[in-house]
């Protein structure tokens, strides 16, 4: 076991996953990611470059990804807003890349304290057009480093941007972790589409422009077919004691850990409590959550998140009216106490 700070562990995990290019711009609370990459990438023959803006950074990512490189950028909420242009172009041109968002409170400049209020932006696509970004939301540093390799593999497999969505707490805290060898999956498709020179043969064009509407729609249908595959194969979630639970808490990231403390208190009060933790926020584990909520034992579902109610919409869509859904959201950098969750559960149960 080694003690690692979340943001630095993200950098090392990316390098272990074969990432050799990083383009980024400073913003709190993710600065240790670029700082770590600036120190470490030259040691492994890679390239770190501090860009003039988040816009430039994501477009450098586009250029590097278009050449077939494993490439990453990281930022925090307002910076990720700026990256949305590049993310929709990555999706449109079908370029694999990993974007890390260590979220802080908003809107606007907001605060540098942890939040999860970029859920809509991450899962709905903050950029223009019909596209999807696969979103991974780890709850601790071990899971963060383990998912990093998956993030790059998923990006390569589907030729699509993948976002790692963390609240600032995970980026800033230190935890003991174990490093596991993580080689790229062996069955990933060859990047024969990359623009590395035509070498006398067919030219490679990296592009998202389809000026003919019929062709643009055809491309969107093709992308949609790819997103459908992602929905079928990439849904990830974790559960704790959801079977036969009376109340199911739904939370991701740091709030899922606070929810476990609340669960212990609720159980002392005789309320059997389960935790449903989405790990992919898009695709959301809709069917799986519905099945949990449908159980006869379940009297209520309660969403807990660091926003005024964003994942809550997905929870309500998944539960689809079969059970009442309560909500506890803290926002702007505030984090709930376990007792606030307990009170919300009791209120939702009408006790």
């Amino acid at each position, binding site marked *: 076991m080694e003690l690692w700070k979340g943001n630095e562990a993200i950098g090392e995990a990316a390098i272990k996953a074969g990432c050799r*290019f990083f*383009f980024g711009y400073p913003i709190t609370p993710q600065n240790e990611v670029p700082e770590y990459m600036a120190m470490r990438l030259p040691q492994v023959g890679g*390239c770190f*470059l501090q*860009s*003039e*803006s988040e*816009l*430039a*950074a994501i*477009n*450098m*990512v*586009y*250029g*590097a*990804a*278009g*050449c*077939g*490189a494993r*490439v990453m950028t990281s930022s925090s909420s307002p910076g990720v807003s700026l990256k949305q*242009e*590049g993310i929709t*172009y990555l999706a449109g*041109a079908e370029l694999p890349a990993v974007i890390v968002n260590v979220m802080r409170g908003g809107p606007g400049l907001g605060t540098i304290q942890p939040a999860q209020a970029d859920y809509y932006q991450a899962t709905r696509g903050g950029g223009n057009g019909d596209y999807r970004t696969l979103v991974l939301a780890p709850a601790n540093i071990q899971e963060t480093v383990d998912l990093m390799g998956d993030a790059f593999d998923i990006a390569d497999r589907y030729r699509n941007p993948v976002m790692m969505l963390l609240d600032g707490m995970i980026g800033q805290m230190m935890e003991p972790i174990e490093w596991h060898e993580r080689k790229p999956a062996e069955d990933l498709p060859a990047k024969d589409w990359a*623009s*590395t*020179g*035509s*070498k*006398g043969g067919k*030219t*490679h*064009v*990296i*592009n*998202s*422009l389809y000026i003919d509407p019929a062709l643009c729609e055809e491309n969107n249908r093709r992308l949609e077919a790819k997103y459908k595959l992602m929905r079928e194969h990439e849904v990830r979630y974790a559960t704790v004691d959801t079977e036969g639970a009376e109340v199911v808490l739904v939370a991701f990231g740091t709030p899922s850990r606070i929810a476990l403390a609340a669960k212990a208190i609720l159980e002392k009060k005789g309320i059997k409590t389960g935790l449903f933790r989405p790990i992919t926020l898009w695709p959301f584990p809709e069917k799986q959550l519905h099945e949990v909520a449908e159980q006869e034992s379940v009297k209520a579902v309660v969403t807990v998140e660091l926003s005024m109610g964003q994942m809550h919409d997905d929870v309500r869509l998944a539960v689809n009216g079969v059970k009442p859904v309560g909500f506890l959201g803290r926002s702007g950098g505030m984090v709930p106490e376990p007792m606030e969750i307990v009170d919300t559960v009791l209120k939702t149960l009408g006790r």
Partner: protein
Amino acid sequence: MTVVYKRSEGLTPKPTHFCPGCTHGIAHRLVAEVLEELGIIDTTIGVCPVGCAVFLYDYLRCDMQEAAHGRAPAVATGIKRVLPDHPVFTYQGDGDLASIGMGEVVHAAMRGEKITVIFINNAIYGMTGGQMAPTTLVGQKTTTSPYGRDADHCGKPIRIVEMLSTIEGVAYAERCALTDVQNVNKAKRAIKKAFTLQQQGAGFTIVELLSTCPTNWGLTPLRAVDWLKENMIPYFPLGVYKDITTEGGAK
């Protein structure tokens, strides 16, 4: 029979979509000929802009990436950092480079990014239908300056190669005009020099090409060339503004 002229190997056979009298076709051809003559068609990666040259990837026979509006120098940076031995260039208009992409081009120049920028300055937005550009001349009427560009209201046009030539990372900066045979030949020599210096690792290179837009200027192709000579060249003087291979280096 002697072949006196043929299509460059760097060009595809696809007819261009440009309006009659537009000089984009000449600029495309010059880039293609330079890539062919330097023997780098198969290794070069180009970056297309957003604007009239957006379909550049249909006309050039080299690998291309289509960038978002103005971001070509950032995309080119990503490419060059992954493939440092490959020639990389951007092709950008005045809206793309001098307006929305000003930050990207200045910082690519500051880093001495080993890329070549082909900058098409026709003093107007072409594809979107003739709006005012940062290089639109004072008094010039466009769809968003219908009374003529008013310097008090929106400033005077910006001179890009002059500005970039002050940046340490720039190895070569020249302004040419696509007006006549002599100037077109000069432009080709400038583009060739820029790519050659890039290959030598000298730094950032840019060639600005004063170009016509008869459609949006509301002029016939021939009158457009005259208008360029009479109005653009006095404000945007031709010449080499930076050349680190010569004594003194800068104009």
